[in-house]
């Protein structure tokens, strides 16, 4: 045997122990890699596809037609789809709230146009407006109940919703004065929805003349600190989608430009 090469073997206890250790690590290490990939897909690929879709929408010249569309028009779906894509890019709660506020503004402007130029579209425009308001207030409520949300974010949210409330009330009051009789019911419903925008228990701010005279301007957050609002939306026309819950990303706060405007 002296002229043979030995073939050393590992000890059995060592092999068993190492195997157990590897299996314990594998259950987390291998899954973690999948999660990293999933995060990559969700975090980067999906928004990238969304960005490409927005670019196609704008480059394709459909943006203008979509922006001018009213509820019921073929291009209206395109407009709302673009808005959803914008929301998908809003990684910051405040940005998201501002976007939802802007969408409610758009629906209000469409309602105004429908009442004055196409009363037959007023009903569906009212429905769309109500949906936008519900989503907006639901996002505010979600942010308010979110553990770890900073006081600044909460304050900004309250300011956005307060400003929207004042503006929408003013616009709807003005519309009711000049709308035809057949549109009054729809406007009454819209007014009820707008009341849900009363964001806080603090005394309502007196609207500045500029705010009253410029209903298309989006509300901007200020730094005042209102108490937290406790009222929930009284009626839900369409439940807010899970994908619309505010997402937190403190690195991004600037609102994105709307391709539909």
């Amino acid at each position, binding site marked *: 045997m002296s002229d043979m090469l030995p073939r050393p073997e*590992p000890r059995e206890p060592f092999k068993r122990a190492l195997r157990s250790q590897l299996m314990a690590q594998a259950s987390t290490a*291998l899954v973690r890699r*999948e999660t990293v990939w999933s995060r990559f897909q969700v975090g980067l690929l999906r928004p990238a596809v969304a960005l490409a879709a927005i670019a196609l929408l704008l480059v394709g010249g459909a943006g203008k037609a979509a922006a001018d569309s009213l509820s019921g028009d073929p291009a209206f779906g395109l407009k709302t789809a673009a808005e959803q894509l914008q929301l998908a890019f809003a990684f910051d709660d405040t940005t998201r709230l501002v976007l939802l506020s802007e969408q409610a503004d758009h629906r209000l402007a469409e309602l105004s146009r429908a009442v004055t130029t196409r009363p037959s579209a007023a009903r569906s425009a009212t429905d769309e407006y109500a949906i936008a308001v519900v989503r907006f207030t639901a996002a505010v409520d979600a942010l308010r109940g979110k553990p770890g949300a900073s006081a600044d974010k909460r304050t900004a949210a309250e300011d956005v919703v307060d400003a929207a409330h004042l503006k929408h009330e003013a616009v709807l009051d003005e519309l009711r004065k000049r709308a035809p009789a057949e549109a009054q019911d729809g406007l009454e419903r819209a007014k009820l929805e707008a009341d849900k925008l009363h964001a806080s228990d603090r005394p309502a701010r007196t609207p500045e003349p500029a705010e009253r005279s410029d209903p298309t301007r989006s509300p901007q957050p200020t730094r005042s600190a209102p108490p937290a609002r406790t009222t929930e939306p009284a009626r839900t026309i369409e439940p807010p989608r899970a994908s619309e819950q505010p997402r937190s990303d403190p690195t991004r706060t600037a609102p994105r430009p709307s391709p539909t405007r």
Partner: protein
Amino acid sequence: MDRPPNSHSHEPVIPAERDEDAVLARRAGAGEAEAFGALYDRYVDQVYRYVYYRVRNEAEAEDVTSDVFMRALRAIPRYEPRQAFLAWLYRIARNAVIDRSRRQQARPQVSFEDALAHPMGDRTVDPNTELLAGSDATAVRAALRKLTALQQEIIVLRYVEGFDTKTISKITGKRDGTIRGIEFRALKELRALIPSRESLS
């Protein structure tokens, strides 16, 4: 010497096993822990043996073997099935040994003599080569100690594990011809260093 002289049951991996390896590796990379466990069961002995011949002792060999499989576990989602799994695994083992020796520069990297004295080393293989078969183990040990680390590595892979030069080429990252050249020079040195059986007797 076209065929490895090792006639032990641990033959070089045959194509069917390579396919199985690839399937297991793909499943492991997709998160199936048991598939990785199967690969471990299949190759832990070979990896350990390779590592053992390149480090000082049993404890270190176990340490490095653990490191090798931990590295493999982390890397397996990136494993490319076109590459033979065992060659891929040996490369990880080789890198682990190199990293280990860098960390322990004060210590000799390879001690073939120690390897021959392994407590479990009584499980042996008959080398078919005239050179090794006709020599005393003590003389072989003494001669092998005088080879370079790469020469020793190639001798172990070739004559203990029974790999062909193509596989050794993949493991070491050297060209096939280079491996043959190193092996040829190593054997030539051994011939000069190791007395024949007749002279020993």
